[in-house]
């Protein structure tokens, strides 16, 4: 088997006396969707933030594309090909859908951004932006300001933006949250499609989607990995049933 694209080794992080992340290890391999589940407060967000580079771990290491990135900033990791979405859709509120996409494409270009040529009339950017907008079925909303979009649409714009980054790996933090049943179905299809672009590390509460999409599932409870396996075995895992599924219905 080839080296994993992304691997997390023995990661720990505490806030004061509270240990939010306790010697967590996991990896992400080419072509897979790896889901990260766990009850509220299990430390999923803390883990994602550390992987994305927004939060420094107390100990442990993170490797991405064969390189130790533990000390690199968010932007450097993103530039290497680590794209992420946020729990609350994070787009630029005063920009239109199209402007958001042009921004994503412009961000990917090498060197310090140009200060002279106009971004919104640069076909190298706008063509790409229009293509992604069309791919996600947002063409008719292209000129709408992001803050005026519906939840599900804004989530889609965010996914479109990370797609436009042409990443080597996706970190998706609860993409189904707050978009309704119909939106979830559509999003599930979209995520299934994403795996063909790059592997996905998926944090999600929507268990139907998780068990439909994931190739592997890691279960996090109280900052610790209690199981990491295929969906079938996770379903059967007694620890998981007790610690997580047993806690309540999903």
């Amino acid at each position, binding site marked *: 088997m080839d080296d994993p694209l992304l691997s997390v080794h023995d990661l720990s992080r505490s806030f004061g006396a509270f240990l939010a992340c306790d010697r967590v290890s996991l990896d992400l391999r080419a072509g897979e969707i790896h889901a990260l589940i766990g009850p509220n407060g299990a430390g999923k967000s803390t883990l994602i933030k550390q992987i994305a580079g927004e939060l420094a771990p107390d100990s442990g290491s993170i490797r991405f594309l064969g390189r130790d990135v533990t000390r690199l900033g968010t*932007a450097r990791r993103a530039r290497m090909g680590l*794209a992420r979405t946020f729990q609350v859709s994070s787009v630029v509120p005063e920009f239109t859908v199209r402007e958001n996409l042009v921004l994503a494409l412009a*961000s990917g270009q090498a060197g310090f951004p140009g200060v002279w040529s106009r971004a919104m009339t640069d076909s190298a950017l706008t063509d790409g932006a229009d293509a992604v907008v069309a791919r996600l079925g947002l063409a008719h909303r292209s000129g709408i300001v992001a803050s005026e979009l519906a939840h599900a649409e804004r989530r889609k714009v965010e996914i479109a933006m990370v797609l436009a980054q042409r990443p080597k790996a996706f970190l998706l933090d609860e993409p189904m949250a707050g978009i309704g049943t119909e939106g979830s179905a559509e999003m599930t299809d979209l995520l299934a499609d994403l795996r063909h672009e790059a592997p996905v590390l998926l944090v999600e509460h929507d268990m139907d989607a998780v068990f439909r999409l994931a190739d592997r599932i890691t279960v996090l409870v109280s900052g610790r990995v209690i199981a990491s396996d295929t969906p079938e075995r996770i379903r059967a895992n007694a620890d998981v049933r007790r610690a997580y599924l047993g806690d309540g219905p999903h």
Partner: protein
Amino acid sequence: MNRETLANTVILAALAGIPVLAHLGGEPFVITLATRIAILGLAGVGLNLALGHGGLVSFGHAAFFGVGGYAMGVLASHAQAWTPLATWPVEIPGTNLMPVIWLTAILAAGLLSLVIAALSLRTRGVYFIMITLAFAQMAYYFAISWPAYGGEDGLSIYVRNRFPGLNTLDPIQFFAVCFTLLCLTLALMSRITGSRFGLLLQATRQNPARVEALGVQTYRIRLFAFVLSAMVTGLAGALYADLNRFVSPSMMSWQMSGELIVIVILGGVGRALGPVAGAGLYVLLENQLGGISDHWQIFLGAVLLWVVLFARGGVLGMLCDRRSADG
């Protein structure tokens, strides 16, 4: 033509036209006022890049304004006294040639702002406001107590500096110089705000986490915006010193920083010509209210208060609608 473009055209046409009429009508002071509007507008255009587009509320831009002024004062005073500016490692003479002075002002403001921004940009929000103020206060007290260039008395330059082919002492010609620089800067700003950098800057103001996640170091974007902004304000400072033929630490005082912010807000934050409109209104208020009573500042305060409370978005905000990302 949308309303903002129309308003912008009217503002620039008025600013260019009124001095010409005043020149024909023999009212040189009106030209001086218009020059003041153009220069303060230019300083505001600079601040607007950081404050409006970048969301970096700098309460210390007077430092750059003053450094630009001192660039003019120092160079011109050496030229005036025929003493070299430095004798080592090479002899550098003073100069009274405007383009050289402008370049020096821009570079000096740029260098100072690079240091200030590199340190200040580690902070956010009110802390950023206050740390920029702190640096400006340092510059202010330094200028006051440094005796070589006049200290608090400032530096008088008896004759306005030269621009090849023009008589800069003629108010209308000096106005033309300032107005041209304002227009060039506005054109430059329009390119910059519409460029990839401009897009990233505005995105950084609204959602820095997203921009970082897209692979761009927002620190660099902010740093560049701040330095560029300071350079424009520095250029304005050199012109302002030339308008008054005088420079003093008061150009670096916190009240001056406040005035620059007032100018930007009065006109409309983040709008291309907002600072010019703001400068126009501010200069007019200052000149007209003075006639009412000794206590005219009460009225100035009342007008400013009214603008904040009821005319949100400044003059241009009242006239026009939502700003677009490439405007």
